[in-house]
């Protein structure tokens, strides 16, 4: 049968079957099993109403159980078995093998970088776009254009950005924007300003900001506010921020001392260390629109009086934004951040299409795909899938906790 006809038939059978199931199961319940007449009419109605929710829920529960809940446990089981030995239980051997694989640690390291950079950058750009478009007339058009990449597939976006990163040999005209711009730099004053001074200063500012926040945490921890858990969290946060500050300072030092290959077209996606960032830009480009839409709605929801009161008290626009608006939308920022974090943890298509994990750009999801379908090692693939699940689970628990709190 032609696939299109098969598709139509499936729609018909799927939709018709669902509706028929719901209709006839309800009829059966009301007319045959517990008819609302005779001597037990009242009892029957009550019983029917106890069963009915499960009739409504059954197909969904079945599909959810089979397609999402069961695989979690099945994957856990596969990760403890070896396919070559006929599925024998091998304990943690797959994990041990994975932890010995340098490619795995490369993927973990890259994933951590992605987790730091992409949600932060997308949220920051999204917040910037939301705030800027909030009060201008053509804001909605601007927003819809920034939002547009949301509709573009990761694969499509990869092609778009591959064109930007394209490289031609020396002497031919460059058709990738990045190289065309790169060849404009010649080592003169302009190059010094843009390639050394600006990034260097930005990195120093980032380090200073991280240290400032860390210092605030240390002070609060010294006061001992909020008990042991809060102090421990602050300690971890301080260490993390100190690490970020150190990295930023190292980058700033690099920006001033690195020797640049002026006039030589670069193959951007093969420069280890930097190429991951070029891949991240693709995802940031896509996710900024999402962050902007959500944050823009949150900004709109801020009570006008708070802003007016601040302005009457003499606050400048920056103070209004950072001291009045930001605290009021912090909850939404957390939601946006976690949502993008989830996307990042599962990112596969971009790496698969652009570098396929070569040149030290491997990430966990692509590592998993590699092990599963190219190396055909289901044990190792499942083990790496479980690592992704492990990274997702804090967010899962947090979401469930919030949902339960809301229900009460």
């Amino acid at each position, binding site marked *: 049968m032609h696939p299109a006809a098969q598709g139509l038939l499936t729609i018909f059978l799927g939709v018709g079957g669902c509706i028929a199931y719901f209709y006839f199961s309800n009829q059966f319940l009301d007319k045959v099993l517990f008819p609302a007449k005779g001597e037990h009419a009242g009892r029957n109605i009550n019983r029917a109403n106890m069963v009915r929710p499960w009739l409504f829920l059954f197909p969904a529960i079945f599909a959810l159980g089979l397609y999402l809940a069961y*695989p979690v446990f*099945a994957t856990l089981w596969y990760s403890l078995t070896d396919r070559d030995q006929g599925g024998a239980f091998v304990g943690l051997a797959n994990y041990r093998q994975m932890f010995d694989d340098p490619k795995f640690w490369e993927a973990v390291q890259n994933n951590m970088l992605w987790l730091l950079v992409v949600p932060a950058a997308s949220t920051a750009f999204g917040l910037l776009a939301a705030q800027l478009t909030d009060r201008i007339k053509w804001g909605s058009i601007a927003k819809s254009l920034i939002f547009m990449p949301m509709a573009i597939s990761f694969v*499509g976006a990869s092609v778009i950005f591959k064109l930007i990163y394209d490289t031609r040999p020396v002497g031919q005209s460059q058709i990738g924007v990045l190289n065309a711009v790169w060849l404009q730099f010649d080592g003169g004053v302009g190059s010094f300003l843009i390639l050394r001074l600006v990034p260097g200063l930005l990195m120093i500012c980032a380090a200073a900001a991280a240290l400032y926040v860390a210092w605030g945490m240390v002070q609060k921890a010294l006061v001992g506010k909020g008990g042991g858990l809060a102090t421990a969290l602050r300690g971890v946060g301080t260490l993390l921020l100190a690490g970020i500050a150190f990295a930023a300072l190292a980058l700033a030092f690099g920006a001033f001392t690195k020797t640049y290959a002026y006039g030589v077209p670069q193959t951007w996606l093969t420069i280890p260390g930097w190429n991951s960032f070029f891949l991240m830009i693709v995802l940031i480009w896509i996710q900024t629109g999402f962050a902007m839409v959500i944050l823009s709605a949150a900004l709109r929801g801020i009570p006008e009086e708070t802003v007016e009161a601040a302005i009457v008290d003499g606050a400048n626009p920056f103070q209004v934004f950072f001291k009045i608006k930001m605290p009021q939308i912090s909850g939404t920022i957390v939601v946006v951040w976690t949502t993008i974090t989830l996307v990042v943890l599962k990112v596969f298509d971009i790496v698969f299409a652009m570098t396929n994990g070569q040149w030290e750009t491997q990430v966990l999801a692509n590592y998993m795909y590699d092990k599963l379908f190219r190396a055909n090692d289901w044990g190792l693939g499942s083990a790496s*899938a479980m690592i992704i699940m492990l990274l997702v689970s804090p967010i899962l628990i947090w979401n469930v906790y919030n949902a339960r709190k809301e229900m009460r």
Partner: protein
Amino acid sequence: MDNIAGSKSSLTWIVHISVALLVALWLFPTVGLLVSSFRTTDQISSSGWWQSLFPTEQNVTLRTTDPDDEGVQTLVDGVYTITGNLFEEAGAEISVWGSSSRAIDAYTVGETADLGDGETITVQANGDYVWTGNEELSGRGQRVFATAKTPPEFTWANYKRVLFSGSSTDSMAKAFFNTLTVTIPATIIPIVIAAFAAYALAWMDFPGRAILIALVVGLLVVPLQLALIPLLRLHLNIGIGKGYLGVWLAHTGFGLPLAIYLLRNYMVGLPRDIIENAKVDGATDFQIFTKIILPLSFPALASFAIFQFLWTWNDLLVAKVFLIDATGQTTVMTNQIVELLGTRGGNWEILATAAFVSIAVPLAVFFAMQKYLVRGLLAGSVK
């Protein structure tokens, strides 16, 4: 904000400029792809797409008319002569040219090149040439290597090739229909299943409801990577194998948590009075659902439909695992593009066009139904 004290700051024009810059930055990549898909191979390789609106200087290889063609040669004063224009379309301007590929800038326009055996050729700036010989000219047309400024030119040829040529490597037509075949059932079926479940979770009282809702919220974030091996094994074991049925089922399963979550949140907000009145009037739950809840929930249904459509259309991983078998007959567009990236990495006219064909449909849906998409996003993540 406009009429309160102090809001009219001098920053306004900076805001306008920054927004314009931001929008330009975000549009730039997509526009690049769009423009590239309308350019020819030569144009793409000789200049960046941002220069496509200006005349470009390229090295081109041109050929005169074949001397063997009927009636092209004339005998003028005892000399065999062929005249004509090297370009198919007017507008190009030659600066230097040559008759051999080793010296493509040997002559300026108007000069006459000696081709040996008494043959000569003269080329003018606009491409007019005069080719003469003492004996009758024969063989193929004379090649001319020229450096020419060609006017900007856009073509539909790439789209024709990608959509209608039927070439097995470049054609997207089949992949397009395959994607469509995957997408439509995978969008519609989860809606039906989820709508009933969402109604039960929103408006029916039964023990365990809160736990079920928490479960749905939890499943919302389970990475689908975990489902790949167990489900593929399941499909192979029960005989579905790799194919459309498998991919429809997989998309249905993976889309359900979001569908139930979105629809339940929306249905809970519907006015209680309507439902209770209907119950008092003797309507059954099934009637309430089909006659009242479903029509009222249209915005939420539309939101989810757009999400699921975009997600299934743009998906690569699920299709690769559950659909595409070794024959490659059921390839979808995203997969086709990844393969083109491998086989035709340098042919940007094909790549750009193929990518744009796959992007065009979601973009159209996006701009047509943006309202519902935004609404769904807000319902799905702002709590």
